[in-house]
């Protein structure tokens, strides 16, 4: 079956302990694999401050992962994540060619720079 490239970001309830985080990450990875997907990269950002409270909590444990899976895998995955009370938010994105190229560049570490040394220019203008 044709596989697509996806990115998934989710926020876990921050009141849990490290063991439970690991368990949940494994649970999500297993969900993907059970539905015929392959994990490419898992990146745990750890506990972060939220920009606004979600479910009366001010921080959350962010996990960001990339995987390849057939289209049919997404629906059961999202359904299970929605049911799980410890997952506060999730966002799945399907990657097209441009986004994938961006991802490859980011991995290699040579993304184009948008703002380069703006402050230095400011100082030289003052004279």
């Amino acid at each position: 079956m044709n596989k697509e490239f996806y990115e998934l970001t989710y926020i876990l309830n921050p009141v849990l302990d490290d063991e439970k985080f690991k368990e949940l990450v494994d649970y999500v990875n297993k969900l993907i694999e059970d539905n015929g997907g392959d994990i490419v990269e898992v990146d745990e950002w750890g506990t972060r401050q939220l920009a606004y409270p979600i479910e009366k909590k001010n921080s959350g444990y962010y996990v960001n992962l990339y995987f390849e899976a057939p289209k049919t895998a997404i629906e059961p995955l999202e359904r299970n994540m929605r049911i799980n009370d410890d997952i506060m938010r999730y966002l799945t994105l399907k990657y097209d060619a441009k986004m994938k190229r961006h991802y490859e560049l980011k991995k290699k570490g040579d993304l184009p720079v948008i703002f380069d040394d703006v402050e230095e220019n400011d100082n030289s203008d003052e004279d």
Partner: protein
Amino acid sequence: MINNPSHPKKGHLKTKECKFTKAGIEYIDFKDTDTLLRFINDQGKILPRRVTGNSARHQRQFSTAVKRARFMAMIPYVTENLR
């Protein structure tokens, strides 16, 4: 944000050209919060194209990226005006 020297509303940007096009960006990542904050005002509103000089294509991509980042609580929907 107001102390940000490259903030578009500070009149620092005289050249009206799209920063994204110039850098050759193909996709604006919602995870890249630092970049997103450059094109947002103090209240958390998306700055208009006439201020930032973004190209139509990049402005569209940028606004989707902002909305995704807001949903994931990485940048605020609204900021209370601290007086």
